[in-house]
């Protein structure tokens, strides 16, 4: 009785909501099915999915767009690529560059895949050692040994050798790593594998590895929290996080032999020395250059070269708006980054990204600009 009444009320409410949505002209999002409507730039909705690392940046850029709504879903780089492959979204976002298999799968939609580097981020080695200031010097081998469990206390000979004159306590090192699959882990282990053969063979690199020692915490926040709560802890934390919370982090030795702190400048510099393949699938791994911070990674936006031909869900209007969004990101968006402690692309790569955008098309006619 009453239950039926509640059910009926609920049904009516839903019906009303549905009708309101259909007829609403003040709804701020346009239905993706009515894409034939407008071709004028400025008003519309585009959708993207992928990297969780890049999510805050894309949301920030989205909030600066007037009249354009960008719906971004942070499902992870892998799921982002899948979403683009299955035409679930207008653009995909990923931290690691596309594997050949992924490029082929995206191309199946009728147009080759284009990946555009958007910005860079560094991974800091943050630690919790009262009495020891920020800027402890560490090199790749020592960090690898810590994470392999070979270096167990802070006053170990290896660490002492790099930091003469700093009084190091005998506290035990509590190693913290990520428990979830992440590009941050991939970047971190990529660096260690490149500089330490033992780490490479014992642990390897990837978004998810078998850690020989240490405690797992979920997300950057988890690792950061664990480091803050445990004296003697060390963990790898995204740069934006570490900078905004004033963590103490290490200066890491780069390929050129310099100990570099993870500043925004040193992060962008890291991109400078990197080999850029034809498909722009850069992978920053222990880069050269005197001022480069060695543990840096990149993130991309992926689209099909001819968005309309490939069948983006938002249609022609969405294709135009995606390009508009990427243009913003490569333009004004780069200056916005530094205020949030993310690093922009170095000039050389930025130029290549812009060039790639210029090649984007809609049914043959160029969109880029």
């Amino acid at each position, binding site marked *: *009785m*009453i*239950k039926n009444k*509640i*059910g009926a009320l*609920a*049904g009516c*409410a*839903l019906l009303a*909501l*549905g009708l*309101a*949505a*259909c007829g*609403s002209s003040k*709804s*701020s*999002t346009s*239905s*993706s099915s009515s894409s034939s409507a407008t071709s004028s730039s400025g008003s519309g*909705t585009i*959708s993207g*999915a992928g990297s969780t690392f890049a*999510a*805050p940046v*894309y*949301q*920030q*850029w*989205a*909030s*600066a767009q007037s009249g354009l*709504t960008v*719906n*971004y*879903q*942070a*499902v992870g780089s892998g*799921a982002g690529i*899948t*979403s683009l492959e*299955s*035409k*679930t*979204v207008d653009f995909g976002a990923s931290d690691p560059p596309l594997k050949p298999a992924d490029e082929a799968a995206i191309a199946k939609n009728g147009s080759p895949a284009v990946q555009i580097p958007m910005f860079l981020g560094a991974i800091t080695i943050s630690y919790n050692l009262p009495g020891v200031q920020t800027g402890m010097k560490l090199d790749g081998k020592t960090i690898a040994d810590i994470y392999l469990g070979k270096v167990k206390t802070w006053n170990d000979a290896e660490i002492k050798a790099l930091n003469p004159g700093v009084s190091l306590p005998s506290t035990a090192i509590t190693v913290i790593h990520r428990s979830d699959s992440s590009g941050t882990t991939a970047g971190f282990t990529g660096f260690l594998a490149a500089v330490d053969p033992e780490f490479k063979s014992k642990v390897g690199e990837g978004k998810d590895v078998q850690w020989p020692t240490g405690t797992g915490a979920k*997300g*950057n*926040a*988890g690792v950061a929290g664990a480091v803050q709560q445990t004296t003697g802890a060390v963990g790898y934390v*995204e740069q*934006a*996080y570490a900078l*905004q*919370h004033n963590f103490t982090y290490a200066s890491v030795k780069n390929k050129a032999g310099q100990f570099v702190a993870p500043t925004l400048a040193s992060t962008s510099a890291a991109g400078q020395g990197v080999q850029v393949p034809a498909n722009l699938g850069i992978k920053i791994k222990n880069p050269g250059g005197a001022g480069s911070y060695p543990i840096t990674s990149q993130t991309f936006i992926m689209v099909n070269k001819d968005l309309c031909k490939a069948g983006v*869900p938002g249609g022609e209007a969405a294709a135009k708006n995606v390009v508009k969004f990427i243009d913003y990101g490569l333009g004004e968006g780069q200056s*916005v980054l530094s*205020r*949030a*402690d993310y690093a922009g692309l170095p000039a050389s790569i930025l130029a290549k990204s812009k060039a790639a955008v210029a090649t984007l098309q809609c049914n043959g006619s160029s969109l880029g600009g």
Partner: protein
Amino acid sequence: MSAPSPTADQMARFAVSPARKRKDRIARATIFAGTVIALVPLVLIVYYLLRKGLGSWSGSFFSTDPTGNTFFKGSSIGGIKSAILGTVEIVALASAIAIPIGIGVAVWLVEYGRNSWFASTVRFFVDVLTGVPSIVFGLFVYIVLVVGTGSSYAGYKGSFALALLMLPVVIRSAEVILLLVPAALRESALALGAPRWRVIFSIVLPTALPGMVTGVLLAIARAAGETAPLLFTAAATLKTNFNLGQFMNSLPVQIYSDVTSPTTAVVNRAWGAALTLVVMILLLNLIARLISRRSRLA
């Protein structure tokens, strides 16, 4: 002949021995202690939530959408309006799907299927469904309705995932309650000539209603608080949206993504949102309880 009054001897035999009295006291104390233990985490959690979340509450917190504008100190990061509305819409649709279907299946199981092999099979599969991790429901909807059809994330897809989550809970709890409705009630109604359907709708369901309301409320509370099924289905959008066919924000997803942000203000917003969600579910509980109580008296 009336029974003889008990002798002192007989009275002594039935008197409560000290051993039994002791057992009784110990048992009651243990039960009381158990109840107190159950309430301790509640107090701790509520205190923690209030401490971390109350500070974010304000008028604009509820009336503005979250902005992505989190980089610039001093700029507004917005409130959680779209998350609240999204949760209401998604959960409402999920409930509208799961509750009638769930109760329908439970009624069938108790009234018609009973112990037949078919009913046993249904029960078996529903039981299996109770142990599925919430994220797998989302993944199922993801591969069938998102990747499978090549269409975008949408609010109603999140509702499907949540409905799948709610279904076994509703069916199981409704079945337990319906089984407790005395057969005598049904039989006397049937004997008076009422048709089967009438007996079910006028006698069985109303009697079972208060118990079923409890089970249903628990299912809704669970669905409202689940993040994992929505991650790959409903997607998140910052703007308010009344179209369930579009990306739709929701409180658990907003909380989940905000709480890992490096910006302190955003983390505070997450806790404010968590507190909001708890209050919303509690209000729903109270309202439904009031309604069901009134129906019992009527």
